């Protein structure tokens, strides 16, 4: 029998029944009455109404028909599960779609009942078990999170406490090495350098410990900005050149100068590249070489590829899949005594994927390995997308077109100001002057972004975008000097009196877009908190 939890005073259960067939809904109600369950049933006949109800209230359980007028099949339960992850769901399936119901159970639904095939006892039991299982899952999840939080705090404390004596060792060893405590004989210097190296290893391990816990609990912070990845590569190389030279390993760099800015966190990239290069140095025998490259692939135009190749001993195919896992240790490293914690590549992979990139390794045992990762290129259009488009509320009669120009090289560009003027001229010729607006241009570190607000529907926007692309390709003034990236974002129109002339609407949106772009360009992370300054219908 379905009653309030045993042993507790009746806390009335509420059931949300999402079912569009009135006959089926009545049957469920009847079964509930028969089972003498103390429940309050709220019935809705659309998924949208169900989702709204879940937004306002939190029922004890959801009884869900999968085929509704506004949603069918797997989509139905996925939306419910993601809207209310802690509420148990029992699917009411038809006789012919049990397979789908089973799929639902695999993806987080607690149970299913086949319509017309269950009696009141079975319904009550299914509901009771669904609630109990969900409660168990919830408490498991809470305790898992508590454990992670505890681990995080513990490691934060431990790493703080370890750093203090480490700082002391570091300070006095460097004081001695710098000759500030009296002259040293060569052998003493050598020994102290060994101490310093170990101290630095210890320091980076302490950092990794805390970082790995953060990765696990999703607390690692990444703040992407527009950065020149080539500069970061040069910076890392100059930091690690000495340790490569000590091992007589050559460091080479091959960065395509035409690479546009990437959208990434510079400090995190420093961390990722240091990790990869440290590994490369560690696994390469003296006399070998390491090559760092950054390049673009035509087949994947939104990303920049960065690779670190070494002539080390390579990675066996069977362990290739495991090296990015936490605590993985490469057996029998060249530097066998120092294995590290096995956290570096794990942290690296997480950082790369937080940026929206991927990382993988190619290797031929005996001939070296190449680690490659991708980073999204900086795109104004992509950056603005979440701020100007309200999810599910697209109105396509207004679009924001961004034209981003990246110079091919300083020599090719010549007079940048003149080039900009030519671009403006060209863009003006591409739009309908009476309706469309060319907003103020924005210079972002050696590149220029032009924004056009076009009063056009989807098709019209495509026409304009295509025309701009063609003109840039054909323009003798621009050819060979810049790479142009043209993209369009449809804008959600503000709620207003539709009798207002389109020109006025466009102008108002233009003002708020300009304001938005100004506000977020320097600090893209602000974008999350910003929405276009108009109410969206």
């Amino acid at each position, binding site marked *: 029998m379905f009653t309030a939890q045993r042993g507790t005073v009746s806390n009335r259960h509420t059931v949300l029944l999402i079912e569009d067939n009135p006959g089926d809904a009545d049957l469920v109600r009847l079964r509930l009455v028969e089972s003498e369950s103390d429940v309050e049933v709220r019935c809705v006949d659309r998924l949208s109404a169900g989702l709204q109800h879940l937004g306002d209230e939190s029922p004890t359980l959801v009884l869900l028909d999968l085929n509704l007028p506004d949603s069918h099949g797997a989509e139905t339960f996925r939306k419910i599960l993601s809207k209310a992850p802690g509420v148990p769901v029992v699917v009411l399936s038809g006789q012919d779609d049990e397979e789908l119901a089973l799929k639902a159970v695999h993806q987080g639904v607690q149970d299913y009942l086949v319509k017309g095939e269950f009696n009141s006892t079975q319904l009550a039991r299914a509901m009771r078990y669904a609630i109990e299982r969900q409660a168990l899952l919830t408490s498991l999840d809470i305790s898992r999170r508590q454990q992670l939080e505890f681990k995080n705090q513990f490691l934060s404390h431990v790493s703080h406490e370890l750093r203090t004596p480490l*700082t002391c060792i570091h300070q006095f060893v460097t*004081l001695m090495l710098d000759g500030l405590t009296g002259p040293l004989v060569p052998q003493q210097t050598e020994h102290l350098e060994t101490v310093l190296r170990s101290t630095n290893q210890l320091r980076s391990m302490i950092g990794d410990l805390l970082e790995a816990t953060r990765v696990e609990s999703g607390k690692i912070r990444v703040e992407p900005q527009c950065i020149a990845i080539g500069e970061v590569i040069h910076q890392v190389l100059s930091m690690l050149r000495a340790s490569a030279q000590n091992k007589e390993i050559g460091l080479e760099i091959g960065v395509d100068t035409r690479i546009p800015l990437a959208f990434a966190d510079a400090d995190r990239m420093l961390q990722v590249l240091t990790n990869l290069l440290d590994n490369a140095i560690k696994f390469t025998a003296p006399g070998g070489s390491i090559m760092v490259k950054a390049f673009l692939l035509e087949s994947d135009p939104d990303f920049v590829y960065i690779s670190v190749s070494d002539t080390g001993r390579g990675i066996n195919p069977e362990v290739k899949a495991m090296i990015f896992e936490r605590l993985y240790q490469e057996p029998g490293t060249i530097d066998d005594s120092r294995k590290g914690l096995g956290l570096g590549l794990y942290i690296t992979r997480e950082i790369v994927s937080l940026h929206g990139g991927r990382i993988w390794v190619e290797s031929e045992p005996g001939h070296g390995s190449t680690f490659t990762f991708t980073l999204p290129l900086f795109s104004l259009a992509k950056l603005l997308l979440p701020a100007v488009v309200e999810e599910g509320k697209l109105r396509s009669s207004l679009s924001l077109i961004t034209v981003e120009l990246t110079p091919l090289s300083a020599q090719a560009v010549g007079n940048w100001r003149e080039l900009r003027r030519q671009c403006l001229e060209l863009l003006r010729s591409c739009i309908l002057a009476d309706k469309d607006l060319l907003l103020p241009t924005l210079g972002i570190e050696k590149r220029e972004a032009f924004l056009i607000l076009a009063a056009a529907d989807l098709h019209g926007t495509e026409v304009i975008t295509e025309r701009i692309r063609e003109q840039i390709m054909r323009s003798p003034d621009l050819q060979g000097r810049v790479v142009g990236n043209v993209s369009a974002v449809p804008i959600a129109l503000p709620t207003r009196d539709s009798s207002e002339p389109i020109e006025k609407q466009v102008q108002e949106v233009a003002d708020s877009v300009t304001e938005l772009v100004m506000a977020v360009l320097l600090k893209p992370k602000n974008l999350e908190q910003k929405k276009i300054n108009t109410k969206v219908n």
Partner: protein
Amino acid sequence: MDKAKILIVDDDPDLRRGLNLRLRANHYDTAYATDGFSAIAMAQKEKPDLIILDIGLPAGDGFVVLERLQENATLSAIPVIVLTARDPQATREKIMRGGATAFFQKPADNAELLSTIRSVLSPPWPGTVATMA
């Protein structure tokens, strides 16, 4: 020219001694305080050109010291470099908001720390205060 004076605030005697040696070797005058309370007193008495401040301190932690320095018309002009073992992800922002000029996690790279000290003590343009990221 007189040597610039740096006030070291740290409760760990070994760290104070080490940093003291390092700074003196680089021709700075030093003074030190061992807790949050005496940090303010020493700042008033010694009128340092720069304060190097730990965060975990008895009798008023580094945040309290920063706050008190900011409240005082004369002391608020003294640049502060925070040198702490704490996690930058959790504390850097709060420290910089509290009015610090720069942040270093222990153990800090000596060359970087010294170059920051130099640039804080001699702003690139007269009349301006150098700000460090």
